[in-house]
């Protein structure tokens, strides 16, 4: 039986190696962009006004995919909240109190790291980074806050409100694009401004800030729920 299993595995492995080899045999690296990529690279800066080409693709040309990604993240956070249902009041905190060093360092570092996170998603159309990156950095600040200073004082309400409002505004801006501009999530509902300044590229800074807040709130909710079931006996 074991020999049969191993031989099946070996045959599968050989088949996959053969397929990969065939794929690799025909591969030749190209020096030029393909049609879609060339369109984005040539027309992108003029059409969207964003200095960071990746952002103009992610938020405007492929904005619907970004909406899908944010929705998936929301679903994940909601499912984790469903599975890790905590009853308030019955939970015991079994963790030790954090040390003085931790608290002092956290008080010093939390504002700075939050500022970096906000900077990354506000400047998403100018410098590398954007909503997802900035939101993840905000959530890592939240971890630091949770393990150092206030372990039980942070409620779900603020996070839920942030997430709901930013998600709603994201979709509303998308619909405004249908009414005022060329299509869903078009960024030209505001003027494109001067190329390379902070208030440029139409709605991209607003959309990316909303995505940043939403992603940060979702990841923080996951962390908060995991933190709340820690010391619980069940």
């Amino acid at each position: 039986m074991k020999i049969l299993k191993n031989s099946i595995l070996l045959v599968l492995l050989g088949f996959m190696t053969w397929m990969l080899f065939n794929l690799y045999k025909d591969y030749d690296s190209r020096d030029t962009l393909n049609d879609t990529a060339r369109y984005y690279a040539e027309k992108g800066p003029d059409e969207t006004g964003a200095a960071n080409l990746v952002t103009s693709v992610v938020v405007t040309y492929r904005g619907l995919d970004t909406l899908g990604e944010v929705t998936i993240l929301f679903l994940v956070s909601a499912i984790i909240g469903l599975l890790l249902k905590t009853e308030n009041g019955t939970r015991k905190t079994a963790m030790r109190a954090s040390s003085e060093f931790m608290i002092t360092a956290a008080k010093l570092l939390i504002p700075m790291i939050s500022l970096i996170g906000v900077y990354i998603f506000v400047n998403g159309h100018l410098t590398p980074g954007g909503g997802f990156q900035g939101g993840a950095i905000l959530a890592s600040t939240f971890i630091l806050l949770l393990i150092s200073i206030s372990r039980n004082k942070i409620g779900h309400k603020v996070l839920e409100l942030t997430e709901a409002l930013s998600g709603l505004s994201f979709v509303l801006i998308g619909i405004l694009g249908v009414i005022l501009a060329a299509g869903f999530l078009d960024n030209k509902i505001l003027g494109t401004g001067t190329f390379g300044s902070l208030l440029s590229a139409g709605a991209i800074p607003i959309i990316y800030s909303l995505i940043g807040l939403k992603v940060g709130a979702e990841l923080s909710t996951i962390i908060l729920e995991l933190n709340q079931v820690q010391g619980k006996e069940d």
Partner: protein
Amino acid sequence: MIQTILIILISVGMLLMAFVAIYHKNLQVAVIASGIISLFASVVYLFLAAPDVAITEASIGSVLTVAIFFYVLNKIRHEDPEK
């Protein structure tokens, strides 16, 4: 040339960390090793001129994933009756 050598060195480091993550007996060390893989990967992305992906990999792969893994490990150890 130097860049290629650096990328190869970092990739070898990633492979080593991957083996540590798989074969180490202590789960906490394994989780930290998987975080280091992400950190190395973000440096490689930076060399390959993808700073956006590098920021994502550094913040999600080496901070959030490690934190979530530690929370889950702590939870599992609390519920394991043999330890």
